């Protein structure tokens, strides 16, 4: 590797063990780009901004405008790079990313990766969306307010709830906001101090525990019973006069739907608590079952998951937070209303939890989600759910034919995703789920294990949403099948993976060591100069 450069050299090395599951040999791009700071050439320019205008006063005044105590005296150590070089660098980095536009990423279970329609993107980037300031007068933003209003009506139909806020910047923030509604609700009833416990389940996304804790609650976590979900009795045992509310995903991360969910809600209500439904991944139940019909007081949907907004390399996300009529007054402000055909922002909500995020949320996500729902309609949404569940069960059947792979609670049906276990494979071959994860990179695709704790041993979570075809699913399963065959035949191939990824195996230990971790280039250079990585650093200089 030291004697070769760029893509070709990398491919030569990787070639022998690249993924060849289907009929096509596939390989990730490997541009071997330097860190951008290493690209700097003094004097190169990437961009010339509008400068000081001589007509507006002498340039000499400018420096003096800043008091000496807070004036920057040394230029920031930013690189100097010509525009085409910046563009090429980032374009190459983008090619080293397996986004949904590129990869069959059904292996990222719980994330509901699906097709983000390009027409939605085109509209979201129009100046009438992109270049609108949030403090513009209402009469100049009637278009986006109408879309927010109409999308709220859609979400009401989809969930059965009575009011929606789109302020949360993602699913986690919506769950956090729901925990804040718990607080505000009990406080208003004079029970704020007494009710200090929130109950969740271990197979609900971890933020269902972390968010109420952030909002000041003690958290009780229910464990699954023999059917794969907690028993109603276990919930009842956890209930008390201290109970503030319940936060649950359903179907849970396992893909198992809790059929007694309305009884859970009833028990919680009987104990004086509220129920919030985490519907981040509602893909399998759109038009099938609704939060409010099971009695939930609050719910949320991730618009960047179920509702097709692009995941953006990790955001901006967007969430729709729904409330029953009783709790609508607790939602964050402002809400959107229509009076005599004119749309308004409504701030007059005395019980409101106030502000969670600035302004009105990631509204461009609302626009995209609106277009997605409108492109499908009621029948289309039901087709989404049915196809996603069909895809999932098809993959499940194929996966269970592969040696070493099983599922917990095998008698229970699965909805939109499955948490598998590769425990048998580990036992038989010594190949762990983490090994498989790295090896799947050689097949130019994703593979994800599980949230913590790893209650299902050697876990793997797969969520084949509606936008993958049977052929896509077959390709993915073929890759898993080949990895399994390798595990039983030549386990070292899997254990030493990746072989055809963009990069080679990384030194994870560096990331947990205060002497060696490097969150920025400047930290890396400082530690390298100090010998933290061995030698003087010159030997690690990029080729």
């Amino acid at each position, binding site marked *: 590797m030291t004697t070769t450069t760029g893509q070709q050299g990398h491919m030569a090395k990787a070639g022998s063990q690249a993924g060849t599951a289907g009929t096509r040999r596939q390989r990730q791009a490997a541009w*071997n780009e330097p860190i951008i*700071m290493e690209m700097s050439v003094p004097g190169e320019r990437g961009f010339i*901004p*509008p*400068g000081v205008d001589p007509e507006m*006063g002498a340039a000499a005044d400018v*420096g003096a*405008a800043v*008091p000496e105590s807070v004036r920057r005296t040394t230029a*920031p*150590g*930013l690189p100097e790079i010509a525009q085409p070089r910046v*563009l090429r660098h980032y374009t190459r980095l983008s090619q080293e*990313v397996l*986004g949904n*536009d590129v990869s069959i990423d059904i292996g990222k279970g719980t*994330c509901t990766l699906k097709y983000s329609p390009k027409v939605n*993107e085109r*509209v979201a980037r129009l100046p*009438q969306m992109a270049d*609108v*300031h949030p403090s513009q007068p209402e009469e*100049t*933003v009637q*278009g*986006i307010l109408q879309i927010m209003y109409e999308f709220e009506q859609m979400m009401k139909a989809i969930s059965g709830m009575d009011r929606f806020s789109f302020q949360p*910047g993602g699913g986690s*923030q919506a769950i956090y906001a729901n925990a804040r509604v718990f607080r505000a609700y009990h406080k208003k009833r004079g029970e704020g101090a007494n009710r200090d416990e929130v109950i969740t389940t271990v197979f609900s996304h971890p*933020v269902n*525990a972390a968010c*109420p804790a*952030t909002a000041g609650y003690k958290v009780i*976590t229910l464990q699954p019973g023999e059917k794969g979900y907690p028993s109603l009795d276990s919930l009842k045992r956890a209930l008390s006069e201290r109970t503030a509310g319940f936060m649950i995903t359903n179907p849970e991360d396992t893909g198992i*739907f809790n059929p007694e969910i309305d009884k859970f809600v009833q028990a919680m209500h009987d104990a004086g608590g509220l129920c919030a439904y985490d519907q981040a991944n509602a893909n399998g139940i759109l038009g099938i*079952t609704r939060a409010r*019909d099971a009695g939930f007081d609050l719910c949320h949907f991730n618009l960047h998951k179920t509702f097709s907004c*692009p995941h953006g*390399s*990790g*955001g*901006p996300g967007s969430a729709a937070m729904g409330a029953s009529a009783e709790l609508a007054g607790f939602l964050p402000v402002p809400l959107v209303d229509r009076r005599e055909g004119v749309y308004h922002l409504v701030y007059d909500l005395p019980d409101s939890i106030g502000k969670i995020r*600035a*302004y009105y*949320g990631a509204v461009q996500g609302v626009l995209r989600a609106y277009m997605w729902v409108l492109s499908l309609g*009621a029948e*289309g*949404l*039901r087709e989404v759910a049915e*196809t996603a569940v069909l895809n999932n*069960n098809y993959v499940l059947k194929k996966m269970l034919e592969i040696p070493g792979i099983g599922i917990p609670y095998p008698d229970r*049906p699965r909805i939109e995703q499955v948490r598998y276990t590769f425990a048998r494979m580990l036992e038989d071959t010594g190949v762990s789920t983490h090994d498989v994860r*790295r090896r799947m990179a050689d097949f130019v695709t994703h593979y994800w294990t599980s949230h913590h704790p790893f209650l299902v041993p050697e876990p793997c979570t797969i969520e084949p949403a509606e936008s993958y*075809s049977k052929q896509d699913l077959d390709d993915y399963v073929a890759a898993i099948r080949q990895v399994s065959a390798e595990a039983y035949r030549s386990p070292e191939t899997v254990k030493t993976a990746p072989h055809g990824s*963009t990069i*080679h195996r990384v030194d994870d230990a*560096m990331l947990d060591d205060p002497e060696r971790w490097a*969150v*920025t*280039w400047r*930290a890396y250079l400082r530690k390298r100069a100090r010998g933290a990585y061995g030698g003087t650093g010159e030997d690690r200089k990029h080729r």
Partner: protein
Amino acid sequence: MKKCDHPVHPYIPDMAPANREEMLRELGIASAEELFADVPPHLRVKGLLDLPQPLLSEYDLYRHTKRILAQNKSCADHLSFLGGGCWQHYVPAVCDEINSRGEFLTAYTGDTYQDHGRWQALFEYASLMGELLNMEIVSVPTYDWGQAAATSILMAQRITGRDEVLVASVTSPERLRIIAGYCEPTCAARVVPCDLETGLLIPGEFEKAVSDRTCAVYFENPSYLGTIQAQAGEIAGIAHRHGALCVVGADPISLGVLAPPADYSADIVCGDLQPLAMHMNYGGGLSGFIASHDEPRFLMEFPTRLVGLTHTEAEGEYGFGEVVFSRTSFVEREQAKEYVGTGTSLWAITAGVYLALLGPQGMKQTGEAILQRTQYAKRWLGRIPGVTVPAIAAPSFKDFVVRLDGTGKTVSSVNKALVERGIFGGKDLTQEFPALGQSALFCVTEIHTKQDIDRLAACLEEMVAS
């Protein structure tokens, strides 16, 4: 086989009968309906949801939505002087090009072996911000500045074990509301008065308010009212003398000309990335960064993801990974420091591209251009009879207060008249800062020309005279 009574949808390949029939046959079922056995009948939706008729043709959908959106006026077709938390800057074409790349746009949280380029772009973002901030830890960004400030303050709360934060009164009221609500379970926000006329911090007031309960002082530089806080270092000193931390909110686009807060002893710095090439998106372009020095006592308190550089088996090759991932709520659930979920990574990548394009010279020139235009606009508007600019002598960056009491007109009436002339006037402060009377927060950036500012001044003058 369930009969499809509407066309095969272009987003759903397995609606195609060839695919669907084979899959159903493989599963030995007649329709996908059978797979919902666990959803009890009484919880099933009867019939179809009450939704509008779909627009199946992409053209119909495009035309319909575009027509609704066309009711919006935008800052692309109006001359805007709105700022105060979201600002109009020029977005270089390369920034839009990169964040439109489908690979970045539609990726999520893949491993270093699947998403190497995403990890590197996020590491580079942090590295570039680190240079701007003179700090070595920069988080993967959270939702917005308000969240970043609230988390920065709670980090200080956990580090010091104290339970009160002093917040300057010239903080954005909306941000203050986010902070107060978020910190409430463990840390009370106490507002410290500032000189509203000038927008300046008053060291004596911080000295009065600080105590052994104070975990941090929080102020913004420039402030919400745009004032550059010359005595920032003095306030940091007060915090440190009392065992508290100094948390500063900063506008990153100011840091080509303003000193990074670390240089005046800030311990944790936060702010919004939106000025660094994010379109405003009606407020959807916000993105909150958090930065600190590279010490375990700080790093271990970050709830967010932190991307770290690492080495690989190949000589000279870089890889990346999560730094102390076991900190996060993904692992620790309710035991974690706060919570973490999907943040605003695409905006981080974009901000990185922006900083790489501008370089040290570009950031300096942009800062100077904004400073100059701000001073020019203040002077020019301050000349209009009846219009006063309270902090006319104090240095401002981007935002500044314009007071209309002397004109006998209200902000709302003036703004209404300005809209008719194709201008968005300053943000109305009458609700947020009633003590400032009929005041508006105007904003100018590098995009405003002399002609733009002169046009505003001429319109205002004409209105005042009428």
